[in-house]
């Protein structure tokens, strides 16, 4: 066998993909033959089995499992095998790589790639809606456009791009050489493009792409052409990727903090990802379950959701929505809490002030995690579920405004009397503050049952989700990408172009989504390819503005690509921030730190004379040598060492 096919890499991945397709074909046909089904070759059946099986073959071929296979087979493994760690050329970004910095960049680039596809679909949606009637797509194709748009934006952009940014900066921030499980980290990343490709290629399936929205309500989704399965199965891969990454973050944060970094000295981005990871680990299995139910209904005729009136089938249609929203409501916090973390970092460093009310900022994150699990049915006020549950769900939903309000007010207080450096990351953070407030306000109105009965499933909802997910999440993503761009690439981005990007985004964002509140309230339902004549002027205006918003994204992409190639070299700490990732070179050394840092203070001590967050000296602070010589290696003891109070008690 040629050496390329034996080594992990793209040749072997291609060979395994072919092998996987053949295996799935043989398996399906074999079982159909055994049962005597006619026809023997059923495209849908083969497609479903292939969508599940082939990606696993591909991953094996690519080398995501090599090390574990060696280990499981009792073959010699090297504990300190770093052959797949770090990137020396661009080709290393297309391999199974165990370096969290490479994986972080892989994540961010992949997710922005799918964001561009999703954005293109949004442009097509707006083109179709520019005037009433049917322009260039029919109803089914239109439904596909917005379904794939939403699915890509949620599962392939907002959720994973945060995982990517955190992947890059979080280990650096807590002074760890890498994530806790680097090989699992690599596998988590490679599950993601599989999900994205499955969802994107659904357009080439017979019958078109999935067209039942990103919510895929049964029984519409169980009666759709085969393209629906691209969503059902794609979500499983994206979900598995999320869960594995979240576990990785949890273990990394709990066990790999540098000596001296107690929980109350963690930067808020670390807190935010800790909170998010809890949400992901607990909630994501529920969407996996909901989509497995759909898969079983479609592929094996299980009738979970088949409730045909008068028939003998007693499926429960509303159950799908409960299971789905039990993930998908926490998912909006999965898409927002990491952004809160990013903004906390930026607002503090760029205002040159400590974050206001640090502990309340951390507690409010945990409060949102807890409350986030108690509100899912507010998506279902008109679904036909039992009536009594509406009021409790309204109350819990409205209460979430309190911890969220604490965060907003604390950010405002952080700005107060600071020295505001109004560069691009700061502008996006301030834009986030105001736009997210609007999204939060419309969120509170929608929590109110009587108003939600009116506004549910109208364009008011479309406006609201874009204010929280675009004005909220995406603004923080832009802020974060600009902020850490020098660290990740070692180059500076173009500030003027960044500011242009911000102002265009802010203006066209509002022109696009603010009028949607009005058309929704006037009676335009969401997810329609055609609408009543009375909404025509507004929709034309919205479409024109949306093209401006699309254009602003291209400016961002150009700035990023061009600055990465030709930008001026970045210094180690261009933002003069205190957190640890800025205390190493840009980009950081291959194993992050030449010597593990010791944390000696809070992460945001701006304005405190002589304050430092971490020191890199090889010499340890005295208390460690005196107090706890034997246990100094474990994280928990190490975390307490070096704090002044500790020294006193021990003395």
């Amino acid at each position, binding site marked *: 066998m040629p050496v390329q096919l034996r080594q992990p890499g793209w040749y072997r991945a291609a060979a395994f993909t072919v092998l996987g397709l053949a295996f799935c074909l043989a398996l399906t046909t074999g079982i159909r033959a055994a049962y005597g089904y006619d026809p023997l070759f059923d495209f849908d059946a083969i497609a479903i089995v292939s969508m599940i099986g082939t990606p696993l073959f591909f991953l094996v071929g690519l080398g995501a499992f090599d090390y574990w296979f060696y280990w499981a087979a009792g073959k010699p493994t090297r504990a300190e095998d770093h052959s797949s760690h770090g990137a020396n050329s661009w080709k290393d970004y297309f391999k199974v790589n165990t370096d969290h910095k490479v994986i972080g960049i892989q994540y961010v680039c992949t997710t922005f790639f799918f964001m561009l596809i999703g954005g293109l679909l949004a442009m097509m949606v707006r083109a179709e809606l520019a005037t009433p009637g049917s322009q260039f797509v029919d109803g089914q194709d239109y*439904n596909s456009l917005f379904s794939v748009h939403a699915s890509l934006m949620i599962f392939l952009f907002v959720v994973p791009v945060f995982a990517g940014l955190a992947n890059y900066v979080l280990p650096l921030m807590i002074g760890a050489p890498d994530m806790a499980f680097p090989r699992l980290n690599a596998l988590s990343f490679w599950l993601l493009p599989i999900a994205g490709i499955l969802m994107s290629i659904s357009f080439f399936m017979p019958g078109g792409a999935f067209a039942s929205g990103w919510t895929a309500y049964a*029984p519409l989704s169980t009666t759709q052409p085969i393209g629906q399965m691209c969503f059902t199965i794609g979500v499983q891969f994206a979900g598995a990727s999320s869960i594995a990454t979240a576990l990785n973050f949890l273990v990394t944060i709990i066990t790999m903090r540098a000596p001296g970094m107690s929980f109350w000295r963690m930067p808020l981005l670390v807190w935010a990802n800790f909170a998010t990871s809890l949400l992901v680990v607990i909630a994501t299995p529920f969407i996996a379950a909901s989509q497995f139910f759909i898969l079983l209904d479609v592929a094996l005729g299980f009738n979970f959701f088949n409730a045909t009136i008068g028939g003998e089938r007693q499926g429960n249609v509303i159950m799908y929505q409960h299971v789905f929203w039990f993930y998908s409501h926490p998912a909006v916090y999965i898409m927002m809490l990491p952004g809160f973390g990013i903004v906390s970092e930026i607002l503090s460093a760029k205002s040159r002030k400590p974050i206001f009310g640090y502990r309340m900022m951390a507690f409010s994150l945990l409060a949102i995690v807890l409350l986030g699990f108690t509100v899912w049915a507010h998506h279902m006020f008109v679904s036909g579920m039992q009536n009594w549950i509406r009021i409790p769900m309204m109350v819990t939903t409205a209460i979430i405004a309190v911890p969220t309000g604490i965060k907003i007010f604390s950010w405002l207080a952080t700005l107060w009397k600071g020295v505001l450096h109004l560069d691009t990351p700061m502008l996006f953070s301030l834009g986030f503050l105001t736009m997210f407030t609007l999204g939060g306000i419309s969120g509170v109105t929608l929590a109110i049952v009587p108003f939600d009965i009116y506004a549910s499933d109208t364009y008011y909802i479309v406006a609201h989700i874009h204010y929280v997910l675009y004005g909220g999440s995406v603004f923080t993503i832009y802020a974060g990408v600009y902020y850490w761009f020098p660290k990740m690439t070692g180059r500076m981005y173009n500030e003027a172009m960044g500011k242009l990007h911000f102002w265009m985004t802010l203006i066209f964002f509002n022109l696009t989504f603010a009028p949607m509140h009005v058309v929704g309230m006037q009676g335009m339902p969401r997810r329609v390819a055609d609408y009543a004549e009375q909404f025509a002027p507004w929709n034309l205006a919205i479409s024109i503005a949306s093209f401006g918003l699309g254009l602003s994204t291209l400016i961002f992409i150009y700035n990023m690509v061009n600055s990465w190639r030709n930008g001026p070299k970045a210094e180690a700490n261009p933002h003069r921030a205190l957190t640890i990732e800025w205390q190493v070179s840009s980009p950081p050394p291959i194993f992050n730190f030449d010597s593990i840092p010791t944390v000696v203070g809070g992460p945001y001590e701006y304005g405190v004379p002589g304050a430092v967050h971490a020191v890199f000296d090889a010499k340890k602070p005295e208390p460690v040598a005196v107090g706890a010589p034997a246990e100094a290696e474990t994280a928990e003891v190490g975390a307490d060492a070096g704090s002044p109070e500790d020294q006193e008690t021990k003395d």
Partner: protein
Amino acid sequence: MKNPREVTRADVVRMVVIGTIASAVGIAIGLWIDWFPAHASTQIDSISAFYDFLIILSVPVFVLVTTIVLFSVIRFRMRPGEEEVDGPPTHGNTRLEVIWTAIPSVVVACLCVYAANVLSDIDQAQANQVKVTAWGQQFMWQFEYSGANGKRFLDDELYIECTPTGTQTGQGAPCKGPQVAFDIKAVDVIHSLWLPSMAMKQDAVPGITTHTKINPTRLGMYPVVCTELCGIGHGIMRSTVHVLTPAQYSAWLQKKSKAAAS
């Protein structure tokens, strides 16, 4: 020269004045915008009053946040020569934090109490009800009525009865009618029955019967739309509700009953 970073009492007063004016203008615009398409039921009256209350509550919140952001940007921005300057090391203020936890909690509690009242209001069943069964199917609504001769018949538009309270009987003329109670069913997938001018909305779910009620207050024709994605023709799954005077209604019922009998 005065230090621009110092915040005087006059600055705070100015912010409060500007904020109050901006809130007043915002609220005025919010109340002036014609959010709801028409007010053709008691339910939409309650909800629209509630929405006005929400506007009055929300605009100041947004104005507060925006005012502080803009004031900070103007007054506290970094000026040339301040590249190395840091702000004061304020870590928090317990009293402030208690205030901005407590006030929103109280506001939210009041909001929920008011909302619960509105909800029980619009859900109130009246003794005098007309029953209509609405069937959602891809991609049309069917309304099932009980005819003059007791025979049941279907129509793809919704007809309800309402007694004019004035002399006018045209589009939008005020009326007071019996409550219409809907039994909503779905033939194939989930649909959602929405009467934008009468506010109420309820999913039609395969396998179960769901319910909603409206109390019509205006004569005329208003749209009926499906608001739950139901497939290829979801966008065109629209119909009309005709709110008729008792005379018009019984004439229509007679005609339909005859057609159903033959």
